[in-house]
């Protein structure tokens, strides 16, 4: 099974990477860009008997490593 784990910054947390990208795009002449924010995705392939089991595992991974809850949210989307 393959899942994409999306990690985004919580609202109100500054996103310097998004800001810098927006600035660079506008400098290149893309004046219509109103905002840019950055996200990170981990595509994880996992052996599991069921989606439920896999989801439990992935949630644990997020808690233990992938996400810092002070600044980040995450959600999971199944690819396969």
């Amino acid at each position, binding site marked *: 099974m393959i899942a994409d784990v999306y990690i985004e910054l919580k609202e109100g*947390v500054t996103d*310097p*990477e998004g800001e*810098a990208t927006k600035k660079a795009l506008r400098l290149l002449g893309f004046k219509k860009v109103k905002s840019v924010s950055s996200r990170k995705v981990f595509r994880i392939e996992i052996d599991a008997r069921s989606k439920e089991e896999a989801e439990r595992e992935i949630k644990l991974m997020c*808690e*233990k*490593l*992938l996400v810092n809850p*002070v*600044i980040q949210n995450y959600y999971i989307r199944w690819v396969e």
Partner: protein
Amino acid sequence: MEREEIKVAVLRIEGTNCEDETVKAFRELGVFCEAVHLKQFYSDMIRDEEQRTFSDYNCIAFPGGFSAGDYVRAGAIFSARLKSVLRRDLEEFIKQEYPVIGICNGFQVLVELGALPGFDEDRPIADKPEMALCINDSSRFECRAALLKHENRGKCVFTRKLEKEVVMFPVAHAEGKVVFPKGMEDEYVDRLVQNDQIVFRYVDPDGNYAGYPWNPNGSIYNIAGICNVTGNVFGLMPHPERAFWYPHEDGKAVFESVVEYLEKL
């Protein structure tokens, strides 16, 4: 404890890269110090003579660098690996009032570990991180001199011998901006101030709290370094070990302070 009896471990995994100078700084003060790979504490592939436990040491340092490439988040992989196998041991170590320092990447590790801000005396390592060191406001790596005002009133065991009010340690990091949970920032700052947990704050040459580039990352309240509620766990983004030898020697006092603390322990 006699100075010669003091044993310091500088912990590393792949990507840690400031261990040599950190070891050298401690050794120069006449204590035993060695760089130790995290695996030496738990892995069964390590030969007997290279196996270690926390009880072999009186002080632990988490040095700077890019542990595991700083992938996922700076310090996250190092701290997750440590937490999964050695959390209890490290908690015991901290409860016994042995000192722990995290410099730069080491600070990131302590934060991700939940050992800083470290409000709970009985559970020195929180279940979840309570703060974060985010990407610098400039969105890039910043290598520059930083002026730090020492504001600790005596709790932090790493700065007791510091005589100057303002010191210069260099910074070199991309993720060093102190962030507290949204909406609770004031509460956190107040608590740190009241507990005497604030250690260093970024200032300009006149000693004023100033913005970029003096505050190189955009940290809240210009925070550069904090300690836990018992004062024996200390983390900071600037590098005292890079200000140990000529021409900048302000950082030496950090190492001298902890050695003196251990001598009295």
